[in-house]
């Protein structure tokens, strides 16, 4: 390769890795100087090599992404999927766990009883029009608001808890059955030590099973007032009648013996 070509190649590499203002047009021009007919594709190969260098660099020190960050991203993407009408419902979760035994029935009778005392409060039926074509960081609160505004979304207030330490817990559950998405809003929920115990949400759905559906584990790591938590239903929910929170061993359990700390129930 002669000096001219070497200089052109260096410039092409610099432009590809620098993502500077030269843009695709100049990449193509630089590539054309080298007889390369697709500067962008060449640039992408250079970028991929650089990315492989970065992957290699952190290989020995990869850290786990915090769970709350994952939850936030899941909620964000779920909303975008909703907005772009490409939602595919997860009805075949690989984390589905068969439940058996009799212990699981303990406590859920209480939830069933509560169904008689509480009322579904359907919320707004307005469907927002927001194509969200451009990258935009959506907060969990915004995702919840978007879901809440959809037709078919229900909002169930937490019943005033009676368990010691949980009397002042307030908030609600927002759930859209068609989208299989929802959020818990909790205020005054006592802090837990994740190394000792974690909160676990359960979804009571008699049409699906007499056993409640695992709605995911979560932590209250700081006494920071109100907190929003995406619901992570491990099975497809058919007709949710109540949502209840228990405190379990780290990682949650397959079968809970209660007690039900906080409950939100339909009629």
């Amino acid at each position, binding site marked *: *390769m002669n000096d001219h070509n*070497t200089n052109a*190649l*260096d410039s092409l*590499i*610099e432009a590809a*890795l*620098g*993502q*500077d203002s030269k843009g695709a047009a100049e990449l193509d021009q630089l590539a*054309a100087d*080298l*007889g*390369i*007919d*697709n500067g962008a*594709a*060449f640039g*992408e*190969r*250079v*970028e*991929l*090599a*650089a*990315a*492989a*260098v*970065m*992957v*290699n*660099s*952190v*290989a*020995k020190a*990869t*850290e*786990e*992404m*915090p769970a709350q*960050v*994952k939850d*936030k*991203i*899941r909620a*964000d*993407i*779920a909303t*975008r*999927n909703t907005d*772009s009408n*490409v*939602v*595919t419902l*997860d009805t075949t*979760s*690989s984390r589905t766990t068969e439940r058996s035994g009799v212990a699981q029935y303990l406590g859920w009778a209480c939830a069933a009883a509560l169904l008689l005392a509480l009322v579904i409060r359907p919320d707004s039926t307005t469907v927002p029009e927001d194509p969200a074509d451009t*990258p*935009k*960081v959506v907060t969990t609160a915004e995702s919840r608001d978007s879901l809440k505004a959809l037709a078919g979304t229900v909002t169930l207030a937490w019943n005033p808890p009676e368990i010691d330490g949980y009397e002042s817990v307030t908030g609600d559950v927002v759930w859209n059955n068609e989208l299989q998405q929802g959020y818990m809003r909790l205020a005054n929920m006592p802090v837990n030590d994740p190394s000792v115990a974690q909160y676990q949400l359960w979804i009571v759905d008699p049409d699906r099973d007499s056993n409640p559906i695992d709605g995911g584990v979560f932590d209250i790591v700081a006494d920071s007032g109100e907190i929003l938590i995406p619901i992570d239903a491990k099975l497809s929910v058919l007709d949710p009648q109540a949502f209840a929170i228990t405190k379990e061993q780290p990682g949650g359990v397959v079968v809970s013996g209660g007690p039900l700390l906080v409950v939100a129930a339909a009629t």
Partner: protein
Amino acid sequence: MRLNVAESPTSKGKTVSNEYLLPRIARGEQRAMNECLDQYGGLVWSLARRLCPNAADTEDAVQEVFVEIWRFADRFDPEKASETTFVAMLARRRLIDRLRKHNRQPIEEVLDDGELTAPSAESTAEVSSDAIRVAEAMQRMKPEQQQALQLSAWLGLSHADIAEEMDLPLGTVKSHIRRGLLMLRDDLGDWSDAGSTGTQQ
């Protein structure tokens, strides 16, 4: 030597249709996005942690990266790179873009971090075939060549800025980076030597 920065679609029993996550995300499978978070969350988080000044910025950055993954999943081509490398490329673009917007240049942090030296091939065995090949290639590079390549890869600095940072002649830096990349991907050499044919893709 050809560094084919790609995993064969069948090398690990994968096929585009039923194993790779990105094509499933492109089809709108919500579960695939969750699996992608589990699979690549640690990698993206670790990359962002290097280039973001604090936890809040890191969280925002990784959220943006995964939105990018969601948007551009359909552009993944297993013939060009492994899924891991493609995800890292999208992360790199977004992270460098954020660096530029916030006018931050964490050169010292990147340079001073001992973890950024090339690990052994054994230590990367579970990362990706790309990373293993990169580790092998970088072990054959001189330290200053590695450093020039790292600065270019991680920060997207101009050759002049890298020359100033490393106190090396500009031509030397250009040579280090060019030759380093050619060691990583021989197909770049194939292309650049194509002369006037202009037909290679």
